[in-house]
């Protein structure tokens, strides 16, 4: 596989890697006919993210040729090593003109070459491992509810919750309002925990098609990674969800980019046993 990313897209690619680094320790690369897919999964298999860059995103895109018996080559690399190359987004923007990615299966090396200002070229040779296809099972069509909002609205909503908060509950309320509330775990003492709840009006969203009274609880930390990518790219974010326990799917769409984040949600069994047995 050989591809070249030019100009402003290098920073977009870097941002995607930052987003994926919030999910898992390994970055999966899968060149396909419809573009280069970058994926990550977390250790408990409760979060999966994929960024699919269409051929048009690249200045040059050659996925390589699949033989009659072989599929296109897939591999995974250490997230830290890959992220290190795109660590500083401001300096990517300032000094990198082009990024070349070259997969040499026979040499066992993934080569990333950054062509920078003043004739400087930085070449990184990363070790990789062959791997199976990483794919989460999900289908947005089977989700009963869907919300679409500008990333900015969601980013402004999430700012009221502390960075350390693990889980948040998204719910639908009267008058079409959408709420976000911090999830208080079973073990936490209710008389010691602060509860924060935010209400958003229906017209803050681009579209709302939800089952009344529905709610889901998912990990905020993993969602924040996607949210900062969406905010920087100024793309609207769509949330597809169903019953508690079924995964929530967050998507971003663009002409040259398709992003999916799939997060497990708390099932009602767990959240029901958590509902306060108020001993007064």
């Amino acid at each position: 596989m050989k591809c070249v990313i030019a100009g402003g897209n290098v920073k977009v690619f870097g941002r995607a890697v930052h987003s994926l680094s919030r999910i898992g320790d390994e970055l999966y690369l899968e060149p396909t006919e419809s573009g280069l897919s970058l994926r990550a999964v977390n250790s408990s298999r409760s979060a999966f993210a994929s960024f699919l860059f269409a051929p048009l995103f690249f200045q040059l895109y050659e996925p390589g040729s699949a033989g009659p018996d072989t599929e296109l080559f897939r591999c995974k690399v250490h997230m830290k090593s890959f992220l290190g190359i795109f660590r500083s987004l401001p300096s990517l923007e300032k000094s990198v003109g082009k990024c070349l990615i070259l997969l040499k299966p026979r040499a066992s090396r993934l080569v990333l070459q950054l062509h920078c200002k003043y004739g400087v070229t930085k070449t990184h040779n990363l070790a990789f491992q062959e791997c199976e296809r990483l794919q989460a099972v999900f289908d947005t069509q089977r989700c009963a509810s869907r919300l679409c909002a500008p990333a900015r609205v969601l980013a402004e909503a999430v700012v009221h919750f502390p960075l350390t908060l693990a889980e948040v509950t998204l719910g639908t309320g009267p008058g079409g309002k959408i709420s976000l509330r911090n999830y208080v775990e079973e073990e936490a003492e209710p008389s010691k925990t602060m509860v924060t709840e935010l209400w958003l009006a229906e017209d803050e969203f681009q579209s709302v098609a939800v089952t009344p009274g529905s709610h889901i609880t998912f990990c905020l930390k993993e969602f924040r990674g996607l949210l900062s990518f969406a905010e920087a790219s100024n793309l609207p974010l769509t949330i597809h969800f169903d019953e508690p326990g079924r995964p929530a799917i967050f998507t971003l769409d663009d002409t040259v980019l398709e992003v999916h984040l799939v997060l497990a949600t708390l099932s009602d069994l767990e959240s029901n046993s958590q509902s306060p047995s108020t001993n007064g």
Partner: protein
Amino acid sequence: MRFRAKIVDLACLNHFSRIINTIAKLAKTCILRLTVCKLYFILSDKVANGGASMWCELSQGNFFDEFQMEGVAAEHNEIYLELVPENLSRALKTAQNAKAVKIKLTNKHCPCLSVAVELPSLSSSSRIVTHDIPVGVIPRRMWNDFREPSVPDFDVSIYLPALKTMKSVVERMKNLSNFIVIEANLSGEMNLKIETDLVSVTTHFKDLGNPPWASEDGCQSSAQGRDLESMAEACIDIKKLQQLLAGQQVNPTKALCSKFNSSACEFQLNIVRKRIVHFILLHEEVSLQYFIPAVA
């Protein structure tokens, strides 16, 4: 028992938030005392607090546009609540461009101070964020534990230097020692000293100015007879001093930029030789007193 209050002015909200941030740096848990005219944040000198105590007093009229309170009983028209000031600080942190902030005493799963922030939004209706902060209601029989600390007979009273300078000196000293000696005299001189087996460091401040003694008949003569050069010193836990200085978010210069155009913001230090150190921050809308006991 009822309490509801509202802040609409952004400058007032900002100032109130800064005070809460200061309190949050000084105390993990403290008492909020509400009366018809004032709010008090109180930390009593229990062993759990390392012996340090705090008394902060605000006039509600300077901050709130609406303030209604009904205490436990007609003759005791006050409310004492125990809370974690960090929670209140967090609730106000993201409210800095709010249209209005309402605070109410409620009883959800337990007694709470509910902070409702109305935020501007591009849609037809505002965004509302509510924070339910759990509080403990202090019964009347315990109110005596939280009386205003009496001002002890001080050996020396002096104005502090620029907080920024003092803060950076103390922060560096904190790396070398757990205890710091503060000493000052009536000639406007103050020293901060640390001493370990390997090193001793002293920072000298001059020309600080001494506040005038309160003229009580007995005191006046003893003050005049006092040696102006003699230093009164106390050795205290350096962390407590550092927390106090780190929490101060006021403008270090004397003229304070605030909506009320207040003049000097006084930050004063009183020392009782080898016993206690007393910091007083006096401002038009708020006064803060912090007592740090001397260690043996």
